[in-house]
């Protein structure tokens, strides 16, 4: 479980996050949603400690990350898998080497076992036959999938995904969502996903926090999101035509029943 308490963060006097509180439970897919520029990436970077917040706490199973010794932080981080918005693959290494990398550094298993694990992860994200290509030689969507494979290679306890399906086609997108949601339930991972994709929200949004301009506006589940009365949330959710029509149809059906 990851708990975020009263996080404030500013850059050069510009307030980016104000008093964020949230609880992300294990075994659930926790979503952070919000417009572009609302502070989602900054928030997850505070959560993993790449940024230190101006004030506030990030608790990993009740231990505060921003009060740990360096060695403790490093130990904790070997249990975190993170997917960056821009993939952040090592560009001098092949696809397979990228996925092997965390295993080479941390796993004490045999080379054969590590290779098997890497191949298993690549298969789970539907990638075959690209083992020896460099990241620059595959498409952006494939890079994303390699990055996911790398993030799950060590069976992380915590999985943080910054926009796992931006730049993916709807089908692969769905596949990735399902994959993340499956492994989350299977291994009781604490998963946090940044997204502004409403399909993901409706698909896997078990616990959703909505951030607008650095302020947490709303918390709930995918079931609650349609009927929320929060104005900014409604604007965000129904910005898409499709969802507006779904909502209208639903209202219509309800009025018919009533």
């Amino acid at each position, binding site marked *: 479980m990851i708990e975020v308490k009263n996080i404030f963060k500013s850059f050069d006097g510009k307030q980016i996050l104000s008093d964020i509180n949230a609880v992300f439970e294990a075994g659930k897919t926790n979503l952070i949603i919000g417009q572009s520029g609302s502070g989602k990436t900054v928030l997850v*970077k505070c959560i*993993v400690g*790449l940024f230190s917040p101006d004030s506030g706490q990030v608790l990993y199973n009740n231990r505060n990350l921003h009060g740990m010794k360096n060695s403790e*932080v*490093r*130990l*904790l*981080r*070997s249990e*975190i898998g*993170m997917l*960056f918005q*821009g993939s*952040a*693959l*090592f*560009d001098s290494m092949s696809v397979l080497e990228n996925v092997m*990398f*965390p295993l*080479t*550094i*941390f796993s004490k298993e045999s080379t054969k076992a590590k290779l098997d694990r890497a191949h298993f992860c690549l298969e789970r994200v539907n990638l075959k036959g690209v083992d020896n290509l460099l990241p620059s030689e595959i498409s952006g969507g494939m890079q994303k999938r390699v990055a996911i494979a790398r993030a799950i290679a060590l069976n992380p306890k915590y999985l943080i995904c910054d926009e796992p399906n931006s730049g993916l086609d709807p089908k692969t997108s769905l596949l990735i969502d399902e994959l993340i949601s499956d492994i989350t339930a299977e291994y009781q991972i604490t998963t946090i996903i940044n997204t502004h994709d409403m399909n993901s929200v409706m698909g896997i949004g078990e616990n959703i926090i909505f951030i607008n301009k650095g302020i947490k506006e709303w918390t709930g589940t995918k079931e609650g999101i349609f009927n929320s009365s929060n104005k900014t949330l409604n604007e965000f959710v129904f910005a898409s035509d499709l969802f507006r029509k779904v909502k209208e149809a639903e209202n219509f059906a309800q009025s018919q029943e009533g």
Partner: protein
Amino acid sequence: MILDALHRFGEYVLLIYRTLTWPDRWSVFVRQTFREITKLGVDSIGIVLIISLFTGAVICLQMTMNIRSLFIPAYAVGMSTRDILFLEFSSTIMCLILAGKVGSNIASEIGTMRVTEQIDALEIMGVNSANFLILPKIVALMVFIPVLVIFSNFFGIIGGYIVATFTDIITVAKYEYGIQSYYKEFYIWYSIIKSIVFAFIISTVASYFGYYAKGGALQVGKASTNSVVISSVIILLFDVILTHILLQ
């Protein structure tokens, strides 16, 4: 300005402090180091060879023209060509050139890794990114730049030899006699010691500028230029200091 420089120096020291620890995985470290030796060192042999050959030739030509005098024996040409190469050219000038070639390469590589979040990715995995990325480069350069310097000494001498062979301004015999007379073995050690220090400067300064790059491709380019300028100035400064210490 001064505050900024102090701030940067502090960052540099902290980075070096984080870099100079035992690697987490020796096998990975050794592999990385060999990769760096190939990429940064072996690939520089060509340029070292060409520059040294030509410079040796030019020094020999200029010496002949400048010290044509009754009172100075002809073999002095060989002797002074050798000393210029050993004392200054093959270590200091060569390292300035390498600061341009190798240093900019290091700074842009690490800078790109910084701005594309690859360094963050390493940190998130619990890897000491400074140690993982920078230490192999430091070791590779400190091992291989002295080798390049010895190459440079050798090919510089060959350059002069070619001049002696193909022109009639100095005979081969006198050149040969010259490069062997008043030979001080310590000059070789002096150039090796200097080059080891310069290797450390090139690798760490370039790594520092890359590691703290911010922004995008444009800033990486700037970081790489800055690293070349700053490391060149520091090399020249240490040239004076080391010469004072070693040759007094």
